[in-house]
């Protein structure tokens, strides 16, 4: 059992190390200039402490946007399912907003909310909101008719059906959406920083690439990926404990 686990962890690590070695060898061997493609060792050894501050900004904006988006989307989904009229009225609007690229809206957000924290949070909220809304609506509607008949034979009121059946039933759907949205929130925050900011990984990428400080660009990209991975695993950790009973696949 532990041997299987070992190989499940060791195999990918081995592959990643292999790629890094080949990368390092190619850059050094072919004499590729640093501003085009820096070697892994250069990227790692030039990391400065200030990178942590930029990570803090981006992670903070993304997390804040993610939490607001999840709460709003959950509340919205509950309203949609309880009041069909709201759903009929707002769903087309929601779909329209969802299909509008965040990059197109981001300049407007900076114009309205300034180059500070909140325009990035707003971008993260906008992009993270819809997957959670759509999946939670789906989950709240998921209990089959037999379950509703069961609750009807117990003479349950609509509020009880909601609390004791629909909401728990939708949790696996909710969590699988959260995992998608967490990485989208980082995209939102970085897009917001691209458009106008004084801090954050997006800002770092724009400034460093303009100055051909390519190792820093790579550091920022790597850091953004790390934030996403960290959020994903924290969510998965929580999910495994909250919806341990669920069998639906989460992808």
């Amino acid at each position, binding site marked *: 059992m532990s041997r299987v686990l070992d190989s499940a962890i060791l195999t990918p690590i081995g592959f990643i190390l292999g790629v890094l070695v080949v990368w390092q060898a190619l850059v050094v061997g072919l004499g590729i200039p640093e501003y085009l493609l820096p070697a892994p060792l250069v990227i790692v050894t030039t990391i400065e402490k200030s990178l942590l501050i930029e990570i803090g900004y981006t992670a903070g904006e993304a997390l804040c946007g993610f939490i607001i988006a999840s709460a709003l989307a959950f509340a919205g989904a509950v309203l949609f399912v309880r009041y069909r009229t709201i759903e009929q009225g707002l769903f087309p609007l929601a779909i329209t907003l969802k299909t509008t690229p965040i990059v197109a809206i981001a300049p407007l957000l900076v114009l309205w909310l300034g180059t500070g924290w909140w325009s990035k949070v707003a971008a993260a909220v906008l992009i993270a909101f819809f997957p959670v809304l759509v999946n939670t609506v789906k989950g709240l509607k998921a209990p089959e008719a*037999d*379950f509703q*008949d*069961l*609750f*009807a*034979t117990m003479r349950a*009121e609509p509020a009880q059906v909601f609390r*004791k059946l629909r909401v728990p039933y939708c949790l696996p759907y909710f969590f699988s959406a959260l995992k998608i949205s967490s990485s989208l929130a980082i995209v939102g925050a970085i897009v917001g920083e691209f458009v106008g900011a004084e801090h954050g990984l997006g800002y770092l990428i724009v400034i460093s690439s303009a100055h051909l400080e390519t190792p820093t660009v790579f550091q920022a990209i790597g850091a953004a990926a790390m934030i996403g991975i960290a959020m994903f695993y924290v969510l998965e950790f929580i999910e495994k404990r909250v919806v341990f009973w669920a069998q639906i696949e989460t992808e």
Partner: protein
Amino acid sequence: MHAMPVAGTGETCLIGAEDVRIRFGDVEAVGGVSLGIRGGEFVTLLGPSGCGKSSLLKAIAGLVPVAGGTLAVAGRPAGPAAALEVGLMFQKPLLLPWRTTLLNVELPMEIALKSSGVGRFERARAVELLRMVGLADFAAAYPHQLSGGMQQRAALARTLMSDPDILLLDEPFGALDEFTRETLNGELLAIWHSGTTRLKAIVMVTHSIPEAVAMSDRIVVLSPRPARLIDVIAVKLPHPRDPADAAFARVLGEVRAAARPKVAP
């Protein structure tokens, strides 16, 4: 040879159906069934799959509206206002996967009490019911840790939790293997005959003729959709019934003959 079903919704009938019709859109599921079920009876609704017998059962439970005729439970229309408590058990266990077996069994009480938990009295009753269905050691287990048969036992305990006067069973063990099914049928009869519950009547839907003969006091044979009454056969065999018995075989043949599709003229 057989007496026609008790008609009317008189005092003697626990469940009285008179020319009951059930329709789903343009499809007629039940096409005029009259039937009286008395207290103390175990009645089986027997018919081919999709004949509308489940619809009739759901109508008794008040889940499906009656399009024509009258359907009364203890003299009052079926549904939330019914005078007696009606428990319905489905073919699927329908346990809530996030609740332990014990909490699943307590669910009807929680809903009746409009609370998020139950008191000591209800808890004791749930534990007692789990013991009765042989799940005493699995109170803390989750549904996914139980076998199909155990899940259905838990569903039976949950149905009994609301202390129903009438138990409606919609092919309750139909999804289980033959062995488990026979065991559970036996245990159901044991509970029914034990008199430890308030049960006054059991109505079971099945498409298995041997099961109907093994379990019931009367077998209501229904036609393919729309369900109409073909025959009502009384089974006057003592329990426990032995399928190898000659008398059992005779009743079996009788029911088979009644249920056999009639060739269209």
